[in-house]
C-alpha cells in the first residue's frame, strides 16, 4: 500500500519534471539556436558551422534599412507604450471601480484586438487613415503616429489584463480610507491606488513595448514605401537572401527585449505581478 502510493508519487513528480523541462526547452531552443547561428562563419546556413565570426553583426550596419527600421520600431514602441498606458489606466479604473451600463461590452471591445486578426486590424486602419487623409489633408499613413495608433490597439488587451488584475488586488477599504480622510476620488487614485498598482503598470509597459516592437502585420499595412520597421526590414531581407545577418538582427532584437525584462525585474517582481 505504502510502496504503491510512493511509486505513484514519484511517477507524478518525474512526469511533472519532464513536462516542465520539455516546455522550457521548447521555449528556449529557438532563441538559443538564433543566437548560435548569428556567430556562424559560413554564409550558407549549414550544420556543423565551418567556424565562428562576428562579421554578420558588422554586416547589419552596412544595411541601412536595419538601422532605420530599428529606430522607427523603437520610436513607435515607446510612443505606443506611453499612449497605451494613458488610455488603459483610466479605462481599467472605470472597469474595476464602477458599475455602468454596457460595462461588459466595453470590456469586450477593449479585448477585441486579441481576437481580430492583426492583418484585419491593419487593413481596416489603413482604409480609415486614407479616408481621414482625404477629409483633412493630414498625412497619417506612413507617419510614426499612424503606426503608433495601430500598435496601441494591440497593446491595449495586454496592459488591460495586467492593470485590471492589479486594481482588483488593491484593497478597496484602503481607497475608502483615503476618501474619508478628505481625498477626492481623483486624489485617492493618484496618491493611493497608483502607487499600489505601480508594479502592474511597469509590467504593462514592458509587455506593450515587446508586443509593439515585434509587430509585423499591422506595420506592414501602415508603412509607406521607404519607411520601415525592424520586423519589416527582416522580412524584406529574407525575401531575397538567407544568411546569418538575419540571425544577428534577431539576436539584437532579443537582446533589447531581454534587457528590458531584466531591468524591469530589478524594480518589480515580474513573476509575482503577472501571476495576479
Amino acid at each position, binding site marked *: 500500500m505504502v510502496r504503491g502510493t510512493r511509486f505513484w508519487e514519484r511517477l507524478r513528480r518525474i512526469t511533472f519534471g519532464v513536462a516542465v523541462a520539455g516546455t522550457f526547452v521548447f521555449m528556449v531552443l529557438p532563441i538559443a539556436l538564433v543566437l548560435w547561428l548569428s556567430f556562424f562563419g559560413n554564409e550558407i546556413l549549414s550544420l556543423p558551422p565551418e567556424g565562428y565570426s562576428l562579421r554578420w553583426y558588422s554586416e547589419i550596419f552596412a544595411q541601412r534599412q536595419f538601422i532605420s527600421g530599428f529606430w522607427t520600431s523603437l520610436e513607435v514602441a515607446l510612443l505606443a507604450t506611453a499612449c497605451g498606458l494613458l488610455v488603459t489606466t483610466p479605462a481599467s479604473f472605470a472597469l474595476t471601480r464602477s458599475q455602468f451600463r454596457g460595462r461588459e461590452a466595453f470590456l469586450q471591445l477593449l479585448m477585441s484586438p486579441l481576437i481580430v486578426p492583426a492583418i484585419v486590424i491593419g487593413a481596416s486602419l489603413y482604409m480609415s487613415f486614407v479616408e481621414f487623409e482625404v477629409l483633412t489633408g493630414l498625412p497619417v499613413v506612413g507617419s510614426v503616429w499612424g503606426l503608433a495608433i495601430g500598435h496601441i490597439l494591440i497593446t491595449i488587451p495586454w496592459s488591460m489584463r495586467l492593470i485590471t488584475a492589479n486594481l482588483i488586488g488593491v484593497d478597496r477599504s484602503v481607497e475608502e480610507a483615503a476618501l474619508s480622510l478628505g481625498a477626492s476620488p481623483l486624489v485617492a487614485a493618484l496618491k*493611493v491606488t497608483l502607487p499600489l498598482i505601480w508594479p502592474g503598470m511597469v509590467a504593462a509597459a514592458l509587455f506593450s513595448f515587446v508586443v509593439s516592437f515585434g509587430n509585423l502585420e499591422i506595420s506592414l499595412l501602415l508603412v509607406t514605401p521607404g519607411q520601415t520597421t525592424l520586423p519589416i526590414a527582416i522580412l524584406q531581407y529574407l525575401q531575397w537572401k538567407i544568411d546569418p545577418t538575419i540571425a544577428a538582427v534577431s539576436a539584437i532584437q532579443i537582446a533589447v527585449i531581454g534587457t528590458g525584462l531584466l531591468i524591469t525585474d530589478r524594480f518589480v517582481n515580474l513573476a509575482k505581478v503577472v501571476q495576479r
Partner: protein
Amino acid sequence: MATVTLDRVSKRFGEFLAVDDFSLEVAEGELLVLLGPSGCGKTTTLRMIAGFTDASAGSVRIRGRDVTHEPPYRRNTGVVFQNYALFPHLTVFENVAFGLRRRRASESEIVERVDRALSLVKLDPLAQRMPRQLSGGQQQRVAVARALVIEPDVLLLDEPLSNLDAKLRHDVRQEMRRLQQLLKITTILVTHDQDEAMSMGDRLVVINSGRIQQIGSPQELYRTPRNPFVASFIGQANFIEGAPSRDGSLFVTRSGLSIACASSPSNANSLMIRPEAIELLDAPAAGANVFPATVEVVTYLGSTSELILRLTDSETVIVTKPASAVAPHHWMPGQRVFVRVDPASAVGIAPM
C-alpha cells in the same frame, strides 16, 4: 444637538432589505455601539454614515447638516476599518499626515499634529516605520491616530478589535475607551461581541436582521430587555413560559408557579430571570419567591460555576455563581435545594 442623526434610514440590496428603517441619535461625546449578530446590517449602517454606501431611503445628518447625498470626502468622519486599511506604501508618519495634507495644513502644523496624535496612541518611536513592519496592535493604533488627527465630527469604528488576540483586545479596549473619554469624541462602534459592547458603550443599539431591537444603556438593556432577542443577546437569560396575573405583579408559569416580578407587559408570554439573580439556599426560607428545586447538573467554569436546577417537571433554570460560593456546599446532582428569585430582576417579556 445630536452629532449624528439617522432619520428613517433604509438600505436595500436588490430585493434584500439589509437596513430597515433605522432612526437613532448620537449625542456629542457619546460612544454608541451597534451590536448584533453577523449579517444584521451593522457595517452597512456605518458605511452609510461614512458615505461609502448610499442610503436607499431616509436621511443622515452630521452636526445638523444633511449629508445624505454628500460624498465621503465632504463628511469629515474618521473611519477605522476592521483590517485597518493603512496605506502600505506610506510610513506611519505619512499615513497619519494624509488627512492633514488633503486639508492643506502647513508643514509645521502637520509635524506638530501628527506627533501629538502618535504620542496619544504611544507610537511616536515608530513614526518612520512602514505598516508591514508593525504588529497588528500597532497597526490598529496607527489607524486610530490617522482617524483622530483630522479632528472628525464623528469617529466610526468597524470591529476595530476583532483582529487582535484576546489579551491584547482587552488592553486595547480599555485604552480606546480612555482615549475616547479624554478627547470626548463622538464615536460609533460596531461589534458583535457583547462584552465589548457592554464595557465600552454609553448606549447600545441592538440590531437583528436589519431591524433595531432596542436602544439603551448597557444597564437598561440588561435589566429590562424589550424582547427575547435582546434578553438572550445581552448576557445569559432563563426564560420561563407563562402569563402575567391581572395586575402584573405576579407571573404564573405553565406549571402553576407564581413568581413575583418587577414589571410585566400585559401581553408577556415569558419571564426572564438572569442566572446570577437566583439565590441558592440549602434550607427553606421565609419571604416571597422561594421555591424548591433539584440539582441536575453542576459545571465548573473556572471562576464561576453553572448549575442546572429543575423547578418543576417541565421547567429548569440555569444559575451561575462564583465558584467560591458553590464549593463549600458540595451540591451534587439529585440534591434537593431551594431557590430564591429576586423580584426586581424577574422581567416579563412580550413576544417579538
